[in-house]
């Protein structure tokens, strides 16, 4: 059975074209033109494997739709942001989407990202159970739960993978390229900040428990390192 993708964008013609493109690539694509319609669509049929959401929409924006989708349906989301304009603002907002792509984008790039995100969520089910514990943080890749003592950390799939990957290599520097490849299952492209957004989100989650120190260190020009 092919995977279902819901496109949420206020440009109807673009939706139609993208649906056609994704359908020819073997997906089942549906589209809606607003955040409100996306919610009612999901309420009647939550059988989608992935959402592609435009940030800028009248009514409920992509930023507002994202947490609703994540909390109610737990479906991975790729956010489309205005090219070159909003990526830094989004970095600041740390939305928690599974991937970010500047719009307008090459449809092949979008297709590659969709496949990468789906591959990751597919892998989740087949992953070998293993758990790592460091600084009191416990990461269980079987149950995909991260916790500190009694408190469990609320992380998205990508964020969990970032933490898992960095902790597996604690003490070593993981380059942005490697992290993108292993976590997002794709190559790092110029001006691609997705992986930085995920790292930043994980940091924020950890900071609640480790106020005095940053366990994740940025190594200038290279990547990130988890403190041993």
């Amino acid at each position, binding site marked *: 059975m092919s995977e279902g993708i819901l496109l949420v964008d206020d*440009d109807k013609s673009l939706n139609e074209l993208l649906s056609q493109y994704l359908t*020819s*690539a073997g997906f089942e694509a549906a589209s809606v033109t607003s955040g409100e319609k996306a919610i009612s669509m999901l309420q009647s049929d939550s059988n989608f494997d992935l959402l592609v959401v435009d940030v800028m929409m009248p009514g409920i924006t992509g930023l507002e739709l994202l947490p609703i989708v994540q909390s109610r349906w737990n479906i991975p989301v790729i956010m489309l942001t205005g090219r070159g*304009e909003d990526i*830094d*603002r989004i970095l600041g907002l740390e939305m928690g989407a599974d991937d970010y792509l500047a719009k*307008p984008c090459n449809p092949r790039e979008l297709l590659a990202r969709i496949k990468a995100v789906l591959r990751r969520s597919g892998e989740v089910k087949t992953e070998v159970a293993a758990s790592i514990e460091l600084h009191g943080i416990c990461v269980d890749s079987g149950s995909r739960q991260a916790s500190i003592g009694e408190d469990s950390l609320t992380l998205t799939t990508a964020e969990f993978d970032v933490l898992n990957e960095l902790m597996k290599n604690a003490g070593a520097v993981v380059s942005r390229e490697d992290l993108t490849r292993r976590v997002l299952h794709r190559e790092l492209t110029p001006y691609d900040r997705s992986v930085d957004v995920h790292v930043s989100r994980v940091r924020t989650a950890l900071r609640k428990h480790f106020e005095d120190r940053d366990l994740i260190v940025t190594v200038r020009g290279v990547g990130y390192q988890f403190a041993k």
Partner: protein
Amino acid sequence: MLLIGISVLWLETEYKSRFSEFEVSERYSNLANYIVQGYELGIDLSRNQIRRREGSGNIEGRNDTLVILDVLNDRVVYGDREWLELQNRRVDIMFRAANSGNFYRMNVAIPPLRSPLPDLASPMSFGIALCTSLLYSWFFTLVLTRPITRLKSHVQLLGRGGNLDQKLEAKLMSRRDEIGDLASSIDEMSEYIQELLNSKQRLLFDVSHELRAPLARMQVAAGIVRAEAESIGSDISMHDRVEHEVESLNALISELLLLAKTENGGIDRQIVSLPKELNDVVDDMKFWAKGRIITPHFNIESADVEISIQLLDRVVKNLVENALKYSEGEVCVYLDEEGSEWIIRVEDSGDGIPDDQLEAMFQPFTRLQSESVEGFGLGLSIAIRAAQTVGGTLSLENRSEGGLRATLRLPKN
């Protein structure tokens, strides 16, 4: 004003020396003899008579300028002695009456009306003159020079592309004189210019924004056709070409949108630590320009500035990118402070830019003639506008050692 004071004093001295004792005795001796004659004969000469005589004697003096004393009897023959004593400059001449040979004294106050200038004999009056002139100059400064200076700086600000929304001071506008008129005219003019600029920016923004949607659709449509061509195994090189050109248009539209936004100043500002941001930019650039050497030389450790991170990033990246594009060797990024400004310099060792083209580089769509380098020629236009929105400047110069130096100056506050 001081010069006027000095020349007044000089003229006064001139006048005083000309009006010598000799001259006084010459001018008044006839009149004095006439009065003394009458006095000795016991004739009480009427004032009018004397005045007539005085007038006929061509003495342009006041009635009371002359006082004659009978020395022997110590009596006032003519005039008001007390008044005379109040005069600070007078001539005192002893003379003998022609008939009796008795001694008389003739006192003449040097008539102030003879002088074309106020009496400034004493240092005190000079002081007063000086004060008056200072008062005048202060008054002129207050009434004329200062408002004109304010107008001038306002117009200069507008000329440098400053904020046209900024109103002239109400004090200037409410004046009912010519300066007030001028101020209102300047205000109307800047409103008009602002309106023109606004509509230009709106147009630029709207057009760029509206171009995006059809372009996004075109990109997907091209993708569909390409995928079809690929599936039947036909040549896709032209499809790739279409994709490339669409990408290029996309990038251009993004630049235009950013330019329009920058001109509007409609970008959020926050407190940014310059050394940190510059380091991030240098790291990013090192990452993408593999094999090139980009060296930061930061001479200050903390430097905060209120600016949009996005714009600052964009500007510095653009300067470094240009340096990388147009030179082969090392690129240096400096951070210094100078007075009330932070100075960011980006230096390369390329060919530089011909001096007569340096200014033109800030105009949109201006590029160096170079076939190998991609770009739209918008980077520096955006950069200089970004600098200006925070009250900074951006300049280019050729280094004497060779290569180009771009200097970005940002005010500390």
